[in-house]
C-alpha cells in the first residue's frame, strides 16, 4: 500500500501532523502501537468496587501550558487553533488559580497574569529587581524559533544576570521538571520556550482532562479523512539508496516518501537499519514516579487554593535521577480540583510527582516493586499532609505509576518523559525523508508537541510537494 506520508505514533504531535496532511487531501496513515491514542499524554481507567466504581485518569497531564484568553493572537496556542481549525471554546479551558514555588523559608507565586510573579520577585528579592527585569527582557527578545542557535547553558546565562542563587534555583525548578531532558540544566532556547509557556502564559486544564483534547484531534482527523491504525507496531523503517521509502508494520509493508516519527529519536534510530552506523542519540536519564490519590472530599480551599506546588526542601534544586529509587526532597504536587470551575464531583484528587531512578526500578522483582510503591505512597501522603495539615479526607483510592509503567505503555527507552538529550531541532535525520516530530524535536508539552507535528507536516508533507 502506498501513501503520501506515514506518521508513526498517535500522540499529540502525530495526530496533529496527520490532521494537517489529511486536511489538504494527502493520503496519510498514523500507525500507533498502543490500543488508544495520546502517547505520553494518554488516559486510563481503574476499577475500585469498594469505593466509587470506575475512575478515569490522565496519564501525565498536570497542566496545559501556554494559556491564552479567548481572542489573544500571535501566541503558540492561537497558532495551534488556526492551523488545526479548532475553536477556542472546544478546549473548555479551566485556568489555574495560581501556582507556587516553595523552597525552605521562601515562596514565589505565579499565575496566568505575569504581574503576580513580577511583584513576588520585587517584594521578596528586592536586590534583584533590575536583574530580573533584564532576564525578562532577554527572554522577550530571544528568538527561540531560530533553529541555528547552538546549545547555551541556562545556568550560565542566569549566573551572569542574577546574583541571588536562591532566585535562580526557584525560577529554574518548574522549568526543569516540566520539560528538561537534561539533568540540572537546560538549553537556553528551551529555557525561553518554557519561561514563556509557564510564566508569561500560564496553566489551564481542559474540562474532562486530556480526553477532551484527544477527542477533538481524533474527530478532526476523521473529518479530514485521515487513516489511523491501532495495535500497529512499526518493526522497521525501510530505506532504498539511503532514502526512507516506507515501514514494516506487523509484517506488512507500507510505502511513502515521507515518514514522520514521533516515537523518540533514539527509539526511531533503533528501528532504522540504515541508521545503524551513526552514533545513536543518547537516551535521557530523567524519569518520574507519580502517585494519584483520590479522597472522599475536596481539599479545603481555605488551606490551599493553589493549583500546583513546586516543592523543594533544600536551597539548591537537584534535578537529576534519584540516588535511591525516588527523591522525596522535591516534588510537584498538583491539585487538579483547584482549576477554576472545574470540579463537579464530590471527591478530591492530588497528584504527587517525584524524580525517580529507572535502572533501580528495573531491577526490582514483583514483591520488591510493590513494597517500593508502598514506600512511595507513604512518603507522598506525608507530603500532602505537610502541605494541607488540617485536611482529614478519607483516602478512597491510590494509583502509582513508575518509570517501568511509562516504558511499558509509551515504549520510551528507560521510561523517559522528555526524551533524548540529543534533540534534532529541525527534525531531520541522516536518512532523507525520515523526520523526527514531538518531544525529541525539542518543543515541549502538549502545545509544543502539536506545533511540532504541524510545522514538520507543513514543511515536508505540504510545501515539499509544491516543487
Amino acid at each position, binding site marked *: 500500500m502506498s501513501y503520501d506520508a506515514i506518521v508513526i505514533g498517535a500522540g499529540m504531535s502525530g495526530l496533529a501532523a496527520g490532521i494537517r496532511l489529511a486536511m489538504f487531501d494527502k493520503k496519510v496513515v498514523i500507525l500507533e502501537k498502543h490500543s488508544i491514542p495520546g502517547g505520553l499524554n494518554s488516559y486510563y481507567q481503574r476499577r475500585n468496587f469498594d469505593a466509587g466504581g470506575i475512575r478515569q485518569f490522565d496519564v501525565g497531564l498536570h497542566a496545559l501550558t501556554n494559556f491564552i484568553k479567548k481572542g489573544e493572537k500571535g501566541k503558540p496556542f*492561537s497558532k495551534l487553533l*488556526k492551523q488545526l*481549525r479548532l475553536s477556542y471554546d472546544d478546549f473548555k479551558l479551566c485556568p489555574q488559580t495560581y501556582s507556587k514555588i516553595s523552597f525552605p523559608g521562601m515562596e514565589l507565586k505565579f499565575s496566568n497574569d505575569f504581574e503576580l510573579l513580577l511583584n513576588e520577585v520585587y517584594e521578596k528579592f528586592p536586590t534583584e529587581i533590575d536583574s530580573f527585569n533584564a532576564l525578562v527582557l532577554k527572554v522577550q527578545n530571544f528568538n527561540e524559533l531560530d533553529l541555528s542557535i547552538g546549545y547555551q547553558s541556562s545556568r550560565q546565562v542566569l549566573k551572569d544576570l542574577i546574583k541571588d542563587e536562591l532566585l535562580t534555583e526557584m525560577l529554574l525548578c518548574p522549568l526543569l521538571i516540566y520539560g528538561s531532558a537534561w539533568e540540572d540544566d537546560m538549553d537556553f532556547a528551551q529555557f525561553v520556550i518554557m519561561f514563556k509557556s509557564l510564566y508569561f502564559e500560564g496553566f489551564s486544564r481542559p474540562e474532562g482532562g486530556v480526553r477532551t483534547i484527544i477527542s477533538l484531534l481524533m474527530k478532526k482527523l476523521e473529518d479530514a479523512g485521515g487513516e489511523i491504525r491501532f495495535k500497529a507496531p512499526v518493526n522497521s523503517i525501510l530505506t532504498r539508496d539511503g532514502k526512507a521509502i516506507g515501514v514494516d508494520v506487523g509484517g506488512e509493508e507500507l510505502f511513502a516518501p515521507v515518514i514522520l516519527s514521533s516515537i523518540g529519536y533514539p527509539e526511531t534510530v533503533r528501528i532504522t537499519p540504515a541508521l545503524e552506523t551513526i552514533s545513536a542519540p543518547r537516551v535521557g536519564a530523567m524519569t518520574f514516579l507519580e502517585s494519584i490519590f483520590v479522597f472522599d472530599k475536596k481539599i479545603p480551599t481555605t488551606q490551599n487554593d493553589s493549583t500546583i506546588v513546586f516543592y523543594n526542601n533544600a536551597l539548591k534544586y537537584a534535578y537529576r535521577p534519584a540516588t535511591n529509587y525516588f527523591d522525596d526532597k522535591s516534588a510537584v504536587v498538583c491539585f487538579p480540583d483547584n482549576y477554576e470551575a472545574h470540579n463537579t464531583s464530590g471527591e478530591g484528587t492530588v497528584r504527587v510527582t517525584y524524580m525517580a531512578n529507572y535502572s533501580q526500578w528495573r531491577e526490582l522483582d514483583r514483591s520488591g516493586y510493590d513494597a517500593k510503591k508502598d514506600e512511595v505512597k507513604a512518603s507522598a501522603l506525608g507530603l500532602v499532609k505537610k502541605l494541607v495539615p488540617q485536611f482529614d479526607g478519607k483516602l478512597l483510592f491510590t494509583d502509582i505509576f513508575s518509570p517501568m509503567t511509562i516504558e511499558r505503555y509509551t515504549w520510551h527507552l528507560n521510561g523517559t518523559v522528555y526524551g533524548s538529550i540529543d534533540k534534532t531541532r529541525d527534525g531531520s535525520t541522516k536518512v532523507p525523508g525520515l523526520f523526527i516530530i514531538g518531544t525529541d524535536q525539542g518543543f515541549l508539552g502538549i502545545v509544543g508537541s502539536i506545533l511540532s507535528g504541524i510545522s514538520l507536516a507543513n514543511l515536508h508533507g505540504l510545501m515539499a510537494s509544491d516543487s
Partner: protein
Amino acid sequence: MTANNVRQIVLDIIADIAPDEDVTSIDDSKSLREQLDLDSMDFLDIVMELRKRHKVEVPQEDYPKLATLESCVSYLSPKFA
C-alpha cells in the same frame, strides 16, 4: 473571472483560516501580514486552499506575490482565466 471575484476568493479563504479576523476593513494596497494576525503558516494555508478549492498552484518562490490583496489579485487572476 473578474478581479473582484478573485479578490473575494482570497478573502473567503482568509476568513476561513483566520475566523477571528475582520476582513471587511482590509486596505488592498497594504501588507496582509501587517493588517491581520497572519504568519507564514497561514500563508501556506492560503496556498493550500487555493489548490484544494480551485486547483490553482502557487509555487513556493511565488509566495511573496501574495503579500497584499492587490498583489494577490494581479498574480492570481491569470491563473483563474
